């Protein structure tokens, strides 16, 4: 369940934000993520941002993926 898509916050006005992905824009609610700032990436589900994406963790995951995939290649 639960399609949620990473989008970038372009502007904020009170509880609402304008977000963008691939040039597509929409007005959404940030009632669930009041800490979101312009420039942040958030996960968008049915018109609400449900969290702020942790970019550091995203990078960490890519590293883990690379390590996991490389473990067998050492021989």
């Amino acid at each position, binding site marked *: *369940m639960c399609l949620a898509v990473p989008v970038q916050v372009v502007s904020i006005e009170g509880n609402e934000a304008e977000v963008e992905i*691939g040039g597509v*824009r*929409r007005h959404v609610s940030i009632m669930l993520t009041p800490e979101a700032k312009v420039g942040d990436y958030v996960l968008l589900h049915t018109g609400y941002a449900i969290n702020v994406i942790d970019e550091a963790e995203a990078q960490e995951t890519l590293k883990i993926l690379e390590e996991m995939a490389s473990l067998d290649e050492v021989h």
Partner: protein
Amino acid sequence: MDEVILLAHGSGSRLSHELIEKNFLPPLANPLLAKLDDSAVFAISGRLAFTTDSYVVNPIFFPGGDIGKLAVCGTINDLAMSGAIPLYLSLSLIIEEGLTLSELTKIVKSIKAAAEEAGAKIVTGDTKVVNRGSADKLFINTSGIGIVPPGIDISGANAKIGDKIILSGTIGDHGIAVMSQREGLKFSVPVQSDCAPLNKLVAQMLEASSQIHCLRDPTRGGLATTLNELAKQSKVGIRIEEEKIPVCDGVRAACELLGFDPLYVANEGKLVAIVASDDAEKVLSKMKRNPYGADVSIIGEVTDEHKGKVIMKTRLGASRIVDMLSGELLPRIC
């Protein structure tokens, strides 16, 4: 206050005649139409192609076009998919009372522009006006007649094993452009409808090769549905590669947001060509030189396995079935 279309405009009264003479004749002017006879009479010889389609798109104006442009291009393209040179169109309007004259004027202007680009003439027409609530502002039906040059035999049943499958450009543009304007779903998308007349592109392709076996434009139901139709009609299998299918960023993003698969989203200015593999590159280069073929790609081939079905190799190398669209394309949250 903008003038509106009334029931009286469709009743055959003086108002009807005024509407035709002031709003339809001048922009669409040609000798056959100007006669205003009950039917247009003309002589043509050769094999004829004849098609009809009705247009009920809602909203009637969308980024990149309107119902008028759609009504002309759709029918022109149906003729072109048989290899025909479009000649004449009929134009039938069912107007919901209350449509403003300025909206109607814009649409007639689009019809004129599209017909001119395609080189076809609108030679006969009809106008009816219905009660409010009986039509989504405007429904249009167009029928078209074209000539199929000698030696051309293009049909959905003609695909041969080993043929290559060519797609003229990015998929999903029209469907997303229209969907983004619907109530309840409003997004601003950097995507325009790809609505366009493809007859000149097809003529150029036919110059490049006499081995174009099938042509089809993937409209409602998207590329997936069209490929399935061809596989069934020709009783062959079709194999395509996900990586080779061009999708523009805006369509990809909108599909992610709404939960759509671009394979099922409508197009109005694209075609699929099934061509003998020896000629595929020739046809491809010709298409690239036409603005409506700029993003052309060979997306797969015809096989003798899994006849009647379309199989797609995913980016990861697995294979999965691509079925035709069942029912309506609905946005989802899950």
